[in-house]
């Protein structure tokens, strides 16, 4: 148990400070690093809020494809191995894998870069 403010608030405060006072006082040669640092604070902040549910969702999606449970990381690697070995060969099966993998990636983007998946590539599909 820790006293207030909580971890998320602290990370937000670090990011705010980096982006305001520190960025303004920073040599141009390292401003990029300061921006990256602030962004990483915000990513970790979102990760703390979202990762539990996203991980459970990923486990569910992968378990449905593979027919058994396990940690999301293990199932992810297993699915890759199955694909490399030629499994999920017909279009319907591969489509289901694509949809599940895309949903997992979308959950990662909700942490790493919210809004990135709003662009739908409609004009640039083969």
């Amino acid at each position, binding site marked *: 148990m820790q006293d207030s403010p909580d971890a998320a608030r602290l990370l937000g405060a670090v990011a705010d400070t980096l982006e305001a006072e520190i960025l303004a006082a920073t040599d141009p040669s390292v401003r990029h690093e300061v921006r*990256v640092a602030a962004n990483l604070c915000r990513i970790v902040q979102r990760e703390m809020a979202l990762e539990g549910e996203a991980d459970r969702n990923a486990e569910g999606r992968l378990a449905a494809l593979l027919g058994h449970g396990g940690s999301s990381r293990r199932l992810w690697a297993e699915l890759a191995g199955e694909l490399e070995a030629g499994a999920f060969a017909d279009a319907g099966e591969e489509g289901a*894998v*694509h949809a599940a993998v895309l949903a997992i990636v979308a959950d*990662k983007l909700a942490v790493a870069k919210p809004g*990135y998946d709003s662009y739908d590539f409609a004009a640039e599909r083969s």
Partner: protein
Amino acid sequence: MSPHPERLAPDAVELSAGRNGSPSGHGGPAGDADLAAGVARALADADPAAPPPTVHVTGVASAGATRRTVFVDIVRDGSTTEAVAQLAPALARSLSPTAEAACVRQAATAGVPVAEPLVATDDAGYVGVPFLVSRRVRGLTVPRQILRAIADRPGFGTTLARQCGKTLAALHGLDPAEVPDDVSRLVDPTPTVAYAEHLRLVAASLAPSPVMALGQRWLARNHPEAAKPCLVHGDMRNGNLIVDDDGVAAVVDWELAHVGDPMEDLAWLCLRCWRFRADHLEVGGFASLTELSDAYEEAGGTWRADAFHWWKVARTMWWCLVLQLQAEAFVASMSSSLVLAASGRRVAEMEYDLLMLIRPDD
């Protein structure tokens, strides 16, 4: 076989560090005097008949992990030439500076706007590393500044996209037989087959990923018919262009040049990651694709839509792998760079782009 594997990670390191800073006004920590003297010696050796020049380091353009780029003034006979010195440690094993200079000069003969090479040496004896000195071309290089200039000037984005098409058609029209022997050939048995195999090897060195596996399946199923190989720049995109009021003043950073499929260049230029949020303007955030493809064909190029899409998928996958390699370098404590650490959280962006490019029809 492939020009890429050995420099995959180092180049990526430099890209992520951002090479487009403005001169900082103080030329780096130490060694500027030695650097200036070494460059002056190389210039004197390259042209013994001319009076020996003096050289001053005037600023640091960027300090990437593989290539340090420094602004220098070359003073000869009382006149000053503004130049840029790119210092490449042998460790990076990129195209050697002399081979790079040869590619740049050959491209210039076709009308490609370049920064004229002034002296190149593969000899580390002058300044400790091989280097290339080119005439400095004034203009914007930072992608977001270029996109702001486009926003301020209606039609300017179209101009840039069309110039890119014309420039690439000119480059790709060169006779590949005249490309120096030490420039790699990505052609055996075809450029796409060779590149897919290269991606497979890189992916195999990383944690298994269903996204990469789906990408590899798509690539294997969709190889386009091969075209005649040509000299390709290998890294022409928003970020490696110098842009002035008239448009593209120079295409820079030729260290990934190789002989391969012309559509590789066009696809790379059009990846989403080089649009800097102007996602709907496919050509580097400049303009829509027809501006590029029309200009390419009007200048004598052959647009192959299937190969263009294949290379977009392949190069998106490559960039996704590079981000993973960067993150690996951080995790393995080969680098303490925060930017490399952050690359691990950018992998999802390229995974998303890849999955959308190969999405099956609903």
